[in-house]
C-alpha cells in the first residue's frame, strides 16, 4: 500500500524533500534543543551530553526568583497592550476616511504614501527617530530650545521611551493596517447605502449605522488574534531602538533572552525563559484562535 503510493506519487515526495528537511533542521531540531532548559548546558558537551540540571526546574526557579521576572513580564505585557490599544483605532479611522474619499487620485496617493513606512526596516526608522527626537540635533528638540524650553532626551528617557515605541509602531502600520479594513468595507452590500440614501441619511450616519457594523466582526477578529500575541511585544523594534538607560521600561522577555543567551552565554537559563515564553505564547494563540473561531471565522 505504502509502496504503491510511493511509486505513484514519488515526484511529489521528491519535491517535498528539501522543504521537509528545512523544517526538520531549522524548526524541529531547535524544539528538541529546548531540552537544554533542563540541563546545565556547556558548549563542550553539546545538547546531548550536557548534564541534567538538579533539580530539573533549576533554571526556571532562578528566573522566577530573580528581580527580572516581574520587570520583564510587566514590560512585555504593558508594551503589547499599549500597542494594541493605540494601534487598533487609527487604521480603522484611516480606512473609513479612504472609503469616504471621492477623489480617486487623492485616495491612491494617500494609500501609496501611508503604506510605505511598512517597508522601512526598524534600523531606518531608528534613523528617522534620531533625526526627529535626539537630544542634540533632533528637530523637535531644536524647536523646543528655540521656544525657550530645554531639550529633552526622548529616546533615552524612561518616561518617554515606551511612547516612542508605541508611536513609531503606529506610524509604521497606520496605512498597512487599514488595507484589511478597506477590503472588509468593500464587501459590504451596496444596496444598504442606497436604501439609507433614499431615507435621507447623512454620510456620518451611514458610516455609523452601516460601515462600522459591517466591519465590526473583522475588527473584533483581528483584535482577538492580536491578543494571542501578547507576549510578542516586538523584539525587532525594541532591540534596535532601546539603550541601556531605558532597560527598566523597555526590556522584554525576548531581548533579555538574547542578551542572557548570546551575549552572556548563559544558554540554559536563556532557553528556560524562551521555553516559558513559547509555551505561554502557544496557549494564548490557541485560546485566541478558539475564541475567534467561535466568533465566526478562525484563521485555520
Amino acid at each position, binding site marked *: 500500500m505504502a509502496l504503491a503510493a510511493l511509486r505513484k506519487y514519488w515526484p511529489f515526495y521528491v519535491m517535498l524533500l528539501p522543504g*521537509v528537511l*528545512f523544517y526538520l533542521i531549522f*524548526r524541529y531540531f531547535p*524544539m528538541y534543543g529546548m531540552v537544554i532548559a533542563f540541563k546545565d548546558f556547556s558548549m563542550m558537551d553539546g545538547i546531548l551530553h550536557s548534564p541534567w540540571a538538579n533539580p530539573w526546574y533549576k533554571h526556571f526557579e532562578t528566573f522566577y526568583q530573580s528581580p527580572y521576572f516581574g520587570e520583564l513580564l510587566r514590560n512585555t505585557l504593558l508594551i503589547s497592550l499599549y500597542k494594541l490599544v493605540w494601534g487598533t483605532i487609527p487604521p480603522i479611522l484611516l480606512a473609513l476616511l479612504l472609503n469616504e474619499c471621492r477623489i480617486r487620485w487623492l485616495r491612491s496617493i494617500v494609500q501609496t504614501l501611508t503604506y510605505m513606512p511598512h517597508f522601512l526596516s526598524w534600523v531606518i526608522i531608528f*534613523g528617522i527617530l534620531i533625526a526627529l527626537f535626539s537630544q542634540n*540635533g533632533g*528637530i523637535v528638540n531644536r524647536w523646543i530650545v528655540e521656544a525657550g524650553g530645554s531639550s529633552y532626551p526622548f529616546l533615552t528617557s524612561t518616561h518617554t521611551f515606551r511612547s516612542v515605541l508605541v508611536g513609531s509602531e503606529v506610524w509604521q502600520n497606520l496605512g498597512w493596517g487599514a488595507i484589511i479594513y478597506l477590503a472588509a468595507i468593500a464587501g459590504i452590500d451596496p444596496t444598504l447605502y442606497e436604501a439609507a440614501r433614499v431615507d435621507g441619511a447623512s454620510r456620518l450616519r451611514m458610516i455609523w449605522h452601516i460601515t462600522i457594523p459591517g466591519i465590526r466582526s473583522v475588527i473584533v477578529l483581528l483584535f482577538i488574534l492580536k491578543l494571542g500575541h501578547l507576549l510578542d511585544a516586538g523584539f525587532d523594534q525594541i532591540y534596535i531602538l532601546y539603550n541601556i538607560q531605558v532597560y527598566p521600561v523597555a526590556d522584554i522577555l525576548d531581548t533579555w533572552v538574547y542578551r542572557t543567551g548570546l551575549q552572556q552565554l548563559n544558554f540554559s537559563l536563556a532557553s528556560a525563559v524562551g521555553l516559558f515564553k513559547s509555551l505561554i505564547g502557544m496557549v494564548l494563540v490557541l485560546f485566541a484562535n478558539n475564541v475567534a473561531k467561535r466568533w465566526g471565522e478562525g484563521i485555520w
Partner: protein
Amino acid sequence: MVKGLEDRLFNALVYAVLVFCALLAIFPILYVISVSITPFGEVLRNGGFILIPRDVTLTAYKTLLTQSNLPQAFKVTVLITVVGTAINLVLTGLMAYPLSRKNLPGRRLVLLMIVFTLIFSGGLIPTYLIVKSVGLIDSIWAMILPNAIWSFNVLIMKSFFEGLPEELFESARIDGAKEFRILFQIVTPLSIPVIMTIGLFYLVGHWNEFFQAIFYVTDRTLFPLQVIVREILMQSQQPLENADNITPTQTLQMASVMIASLPVLVVYPFIQKYFTKGMLLGSIKG
C-alpha cells in the same frame, strides 16, 4: 441646499485628514533626505528646519562611499537578497505544489508540520545552537538558510495552486508530462502574480536583513547594510562647533539611512499593488 453644504464640509474634513495622514507618513523621510544633503551650517542658521535646502552637498554620501564599510555591506545585502530570494521561491514552490494535490498521501501530516511552527517555536537559543552545529556561523548562508521558507507563504502559494483548474493537470498528465515539467512549464507561468507577490515579500525581508546577521555572524566583512547603518547611528553626536567645515555626524547618519532605504523607496511605488494583494491573500487564507 443645506444638505449640499453639509456634504461639502464633510468632504473637506475627510480630505484634510487624509492629506494630514499622507504628510505624516512622508514628512519624516523628506526631512531625513534634506538633512543628508544640506550643509550643516545652513541647517543651524535656519533653526534646524529645512525641507528644501538652498545649497546641496553630497559630501556625506561621498564620505560614506569612500571611507566606511557601507559599500562592502551593500554588496553583501545585494548578494543575500538575490540568492536568498531565489532559494526562497524555489523551496516555497516545491513545497506548495505537492501540498496542493488533495489526494497526496501524507499531505495532512506535512501541513500540520508547517502550521505547528506558526504557533510554537524552539526559540532563539536552541535555534542558534542548531545553526552553529550545522556549521553556518559566520557564513553568508547563516542569513539565508535559517529562514529559507516562511510558512505563511507556503500556505498562500498552496491555496493559489489549488485554485488552478484541475483539467489543466489532467490533460498534461494524459499527454505524458512528468510532474516536474508540469510544475515548471505549466503551473509556474500561470502563477506569476502569486510568485511576484511572495517574491517581493521575501525580497524586502532580505533587504532589511538585520537579526540573523546579529545572531549568527561576527565577521565584519559579512555584515549587511542594516547592521552597518545601525552602527553608524549608534555613534554619538559630535559637538556642533565649526559646522561649516566638517560633515557632522547627523548628516552622515542620515546619508547612511538614505543609502539603505533608497532602493526600497524608489522601487516601492511601482510594486505597491502586489504587496497589497499579498496582504489580502495572507489574511484571508493564511
